[in-house]
């Protein structure tokens, strides 16, 4: 259901060019969205047609996350990397950290957040939920989650668990 609604809305949004949308475009949008939803269902049969992903409160928090903590992380990450590009001061290594997330969406969200935020890049995730993170300046060889991703673990849990 979630895939259907989002792909349909996205299609209509991209088709809209001022004025009304012709009926044939709505038809194509519906067709594409149904195909996408059925494909997703065939790929992950255990996902039911639940409405949880459409909850506007979650979307609100998601937008808040993107424009609040995530944007701040992105900014500091860039200043940090810019500094390292100029000074060449690095101490790289791959560390292991386990945030204890269980669901695919929250794992993806955290992995992407780690990659775009200060000095870290997710390399691999194993079946136990351990993240292998490439860290550009290792300060601690056995770090806690907080050292790597700050508040993002809590955010991933709140938004997607």
């Amino acid at each position, binding site marked *: 259901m979630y895939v259907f609604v989002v792909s349909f809305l996205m299609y209509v949004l991209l088709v809209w060019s001022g004025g009304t949308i012709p009926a044939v475009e709505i038809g194509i949008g519906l067709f594409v969205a149904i195909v996408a939803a059925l494909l997703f269902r065939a790929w992950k049969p255990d996902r039911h047609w639940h409405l949880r992903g459409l909850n506007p409160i979650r979307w609100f928090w998601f937008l808040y996350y993107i424009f609040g903590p995530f944007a701040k992380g992105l900014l500091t990450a860039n200043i940090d*990397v810019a500094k390292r590009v100029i000074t060449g001061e*690095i101490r790289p290594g791959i560390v292991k950290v386990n945030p204890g997330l269980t669901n695919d969406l929250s794992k993806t969200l955290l992995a992407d957040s780690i990659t775009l935020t200060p000095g870290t890049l997710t390399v691999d995730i194993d079946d136990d939920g351990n993240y292998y993170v*490439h860290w550009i300046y*290792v300060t601690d060889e056995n770090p806690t989650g907080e050292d790597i991703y700050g508040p993002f673990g809590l955010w991933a849990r709140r938004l997607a668990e």
Partner: protein
Amino acid sequence: MAVLVVILFVAICLFFNLLGVVSLFRFPDVYTRLHGATKCTTFGTLFAAFAVIAHSVARYFATGEVRFLVLIIHTLVAAGALLVTNATGAHALARASHRSGIMPAQAVVDRLEERESEKGGATA
């Protein structure tokens, strides 16, 4: 006024994209280069999108033409897609490199390598 904002955004965009390029030459191996190539170019290109949005907003209020509104929507979609795909692409590259046996240069610690040797080679 709007022109100044657009120029500022384009300048930030060019500065960070340039740093991304410099990082490809400065850093020793694929992982550290990916840091520069993903973070700097994502951030820089986001500012290119902001410049387009600022320009469209100014033109929309000046002329009232709907096509500038459409341009804003399309740019926002592109920026969202950029945020997701850039991080995911970097992740895929790093993982593929490590599985192909490219080890991080100057690394002080490599937990992934330790796990793979426990399992007997990088075939996990």
